[in-house]
Structures are given as structure tokens and as C-alpha cells.
């Protein structure tokens, strides 16, 4: 928390998912007994991130792509591309935590479920971008992407395509500060 996640350029390989990826798929309930405020246990969430996504839906367009390719905690992929309503379901902050622990820096979805979006922003785990284009049909798992965060542009280095992202808007300053607490301190709302 408080670390800078909104770097000018975010680059990495894409892991592509479909619509309505819910929090049970992102981090199944049986792993919620880990306490994310204990660093060793925070790491554990990375290992189980996206572990309940049905195999045929994991790593589109073909599916059946394992999310973890290097070691058991961190994924090779750093940007998740998804369709509608990403993060629906439970309020568990363990969901953005699991993706952060697995090495995800940004998500680009059509839109998010409310609580997931707030958790990602307020916890300062990763940057939740939105894009009007249905990127989950346009980007392939493994494509190399580059997000220019100030210009709100996503470039697919593999295909050469460019896409306009939605501006971060009112939550921009919170993301830029690195989460709710850093923002509130900047604003003088809470003492340091």
C-alpha cells in the first residue's frame, strides 16, 4: 500500500478472460483463511489466483492456458484482459490481492463489479482500466501489451493495434496516490 502502481508505462504479457469472472473464480473461498495482512500469507494468494476459472475459459481465445507458468506463486502474465462485469460476487479484497500477489499490474475490462473496482482502487493493488472496445475478443493470451497511462492508450505490440482506454476520472487521484490511505493523508484527512 502506498506504493506507486500508476507508472507512466505498464507493459507485459496479456492473460485473457471472458465475462462475469467472479471473485470465487479469482480466489476460491477455501483459501480465504489466509490473512492478507501477514506478508507470508499475502504471497500465498498469488499461488491460487484464478484457480477456479474453468480451464476452457482460462487464457482465451483457445483456453486451457495455465495462468502460472514460471513458479507457483507468480505468473508470467502481468496484464489481465477481460470482458464485462469483472470481479462480481463477493466483497473479498482477497480477489485484487490474489492478482497483485501473482504479479498482475493492470486489468483492462469492459467494466467492473462495484466492490472489486473499489477494492482495487482503495487498496492500491493494481490499476483497473476500462475500454469500450471488447478487448477480450481482440487480444490473444500471450500478446505483448503496453499501456500509456497518461494518454490512456493500450498498444498491442504483437499485432500493432491501438485502443483508447476510458480516463480514470474521479478515482484517478486515489490510484495515483497509491490507495485510499495515501490519498487521505495527501488531503490531510488523516494524520500521518
Amino acid at each position, binding site marked *: *500500500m502506498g506504493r506507486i502502481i500508476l507508472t507512466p508505462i505498464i507493459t507485459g504479457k496479456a492473460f485473457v478472460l471472458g465475462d*462475469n469472472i*467472479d471473485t*470465487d*473464480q479469482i480466489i*476460491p*473461498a*477455501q483459501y*480465504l*483463511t*489466509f*490473512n*492478507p*495482512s*501477514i506478508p507470508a500469507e499475502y504471497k500465498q494468494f498469488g499461488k491460487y489466483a484464478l484457480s*477456479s*476459472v*474453468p480451464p476452457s475459459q482460462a487464457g482465451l481465445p483457445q483456453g486451457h492456458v495455465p495462468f502460472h507458468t514460471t513458479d507457483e506463486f507468480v505468473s508470467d502474465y502481468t496484464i489481465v484482459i477481460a470482458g*464485462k*462485469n469483472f470481479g*462480481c*460476487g*463477493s*466483497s*473479498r*479484497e*482477497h480477489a485484487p490481492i490474489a492478482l497483485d500477489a501473482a504479479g498482475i499490474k493492470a486489468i483492462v475490462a469492459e*467494466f467492473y*463489479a*462495484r*466492490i472489486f473496482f*473499489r*477494492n482495487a482502487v*482503495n*487498496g*492500491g493493488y493494481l490499476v483497473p482500466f476500462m475500454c469500450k472496445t471488447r478487448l477480450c475478443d481482440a487480444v490473444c493470451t500471450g500478446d505483448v501489451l503496453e499501456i500509456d497511462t497518461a494518454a490512456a492508450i493500450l498498444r498491442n505490440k504483437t499485432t500493432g493495434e491501438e485502443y483508447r482506454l476510458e480516463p480514470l476520472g*474521479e478515482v484517478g487521484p486515489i490510484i495515483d496516490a497509491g*490507495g*485510499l*490511505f495515501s490519498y*487521505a493523508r495527501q488531503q490531510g*484527512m*488523516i494524520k500521518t
Partner: protein
Amino acid sequence: MTAMTLSEKILAKHAGKPFVRPGDNVWCNIDILMTHDVCGPGTIGVFHKQFGRDAKVWDKNKVVIIPDHYIFTADVMANRNVDTLRQFVREQNLPHFYDVGTDRYKGVCHIALPEEGHTRPGEILLGTDSHTCTAGAFGEFATGIGNTEAGFVLGTGKLWLSVPATMRFVFQGNLPPYLMAKDLILAVIGDIGCDGATYRAMEFDGDGVYALDMEERMTLCNMAIEAGGKNGIIAPDRVTLGYVDARNKSKIAYEVVKSDPGATFMVEKVYDVTKMQPVVAKPHSPDNKAPVREVQGTKLDRAYIGSCTGGKMGDFRGAAKILDGKTVRIDTFVVPATSEIARQLKTERIGSRTLEEIFLAAGAKMGEPSCAACLGGPADTFGRLNEPMSCISTTNRNFPGRMGHKQAQVYLASPLTVAASALTGTITDPRDFVG
């Protein structure tokens, strides 16, 4: 002054503003913060890290801690999490803690909150659980938040909230005996989709709603989140105030708020409940609606009656009415939401038998009050789907893996439909058993 909806009025008041509009981001004073054993330890961790090891919560009378998720398990980590809550409660000297293994133990937080008098009209209730929206049944603004936000509220008593536009759902007419609130809300979710109310308030209205008791109204609001809703809400009436006043032990004053005449609703949908029929949500999404008649005969391995959605007294009355004097064909699990409900199952009767006797005589298994298999949980959880089986359930979610195994097929339905299906071992319309 500009007319506002019920949700807008509550947010304006708590933000100290004469009016707010949908889309405004406002800092609100929070009346109650609830957390449980799954998100409590993380919330406490955030609080300590950010405010310091010796910091005190903003108002100890406004913090409610209800362990309910992973309770009757041998899982070491799960038990450790309850210990973390205990230690925090001791350090902070918090009065509203419902500890496991004591007389105060309650069970599922969303039902425990109203039973223990923590829900009041006009207030803002935040909880580290997405079904916190259940409390909107009491005419308050109630929504789920994450650990970081809850840690912030613990320290400051405030949080930024964006004002949702309100969608209004009007139910007209009296519910026929074969329908329950579960059928109404599954119909709505099926109609608008599981993202149909994302970032929106869902206000329920109409004589069909006001004819429901508080438990049924809670079922309606409980599943607002399944359409992506920020909150579900029902303006208070005499039934609400009767319930609240009987439970409001600390006699905290509250304000009855209703939508202004002329308030703007972004959508209004009207349902005639007399024309509706029993429905299920098919695997693997709560919006995958089908009339029971359309899927009847689908083979099942298990039936589950429990959770904050379908484990209240009215839910068990409905199920017992169907199971009375009959025998289930498939494994049937009955899990009361709270200890108060569990006790009432042992005393309330249909004819000469208690509801619990009816369930046991029918061959159902009775569990301890808690969330149990509603969210899968550790492998030894009562009723958990450890194999890729097919289950009909009164719970609220059927995403892949929700009740345990990721290949399990879960159908969501009303307690009446689940009980009828338990008797035949296939999906069955309750009209085959009740008028």
C-alpha cells in the same frame, strides 16, 4: 429543493449536504461497521498498520463483529482467524461481539444484525461482505466494502461513497402460496442480468412488497448484489418499525426516510406477482433464469436449505410445510442462519411436531447455524459439495466452485422449490405439493 430517492436522501444527510445527485462522490459518516471472520483479520491488519498498534476504533458502540463463515471446522487457520477477532475485541473493549462457543454466538451476520438490533431506518451500514445489502430491507443504506475501506472506517468513521442512480422495482398483488420472495428476486436478476444494476440502488416498492414480512424483504434486498446492485432498499412501514423497535435494545433514535414524490428513477419495472411462477437460476450464474416447469425432472444429488438468503424462519416454515410427513429422496441439508432460528426450529410446530422434528423425520440432516456450504469453505464443511454433483439450493450464488467443487452444478431456488425437489430427487415445481 430537488426531489431525491430514499438512497440519495440517506447519503446526503450523512454527507452533511442538502442534496446529492447520482454520480456525486461524497464522504459519509458511517453508523455501523460490521465485519466477520473472513475479512475481519485483514481489516484489523490494515487498521493497525495505518493507525498504529495502539490506535482505538472511532466508536466502539458502532463496530459489530460476527464470526459466521468458517465456524464448525477443524481448519487451524480458520480457527486462528476467530482468535484474531477475539484479541482485537479484548484490546478495544468492543461490546458487540458474538463469539463462537459462547451464549452470544449468533451465526450468519446479515440475519444476526437485525435480530440483535443493529439495523435501523435511515442509517448507513457498511460491512465487509457483499450481502450487507440485506439490511436495506430496514430502510437503511447498506452495502459491502473491502478490508482497506473497513480499516479506514474503523479509524475515521467515514468513507467516500458515490451516489448511485436508483432503479425502482414495483411488485403488485399478493404472493400466491407457491411463490416466495426468492422467486421475485431471481426473476428480476434474470430479467436485468447479473450486471444489470451495477453501481445502482435497487428500490423495491408496491403492495406486493409491503405484504411481505421482514425476512422475505431481507431476501429481496440480499440478492441485489447478484444483479451488481450497490444496495437494495425498501422504505420503512409499520411492519419495519414493529420489528426494529422490538429489537433496538439500546433505544437508539432513528429517522424514517422515504423517496420524495417526483424523485428520479433511472428505470422502473412493474411486476404483477399473481402472474409470476416459481423459477430457478441454472448453473453457473444467478441470472441464468428458467421457470421450474421448464427444467423439471432434472436429476439432482443433493438439496440444501440454508444461508442468509434461505435459512430464516419463513424459509423453514415453507420447506417444512412441504416435507411434513414425507421422506426425502436425496441427501438434504438444513442449516439455520442463526442460533435464534435454530432454537425456534425446536419450538415452533406444525400440528404436533416441531419444524426440526419434521425435517429429521423426513430424513434431512440438520447443521449448526453458520454460513456452512453456502460458500464451500474448508473440506470438512457441513454440506460442502466435494464432488462434481448436482445440487438445488436456497443460497444466493452458483458461480463455478461457489459451494465447493468447481464442476458441481448448482441450481438456486426458493425453499418451497428446494423442498419439493428433495422429495422427488429431481427439480420439481412446488405447485405439485402446495396450492
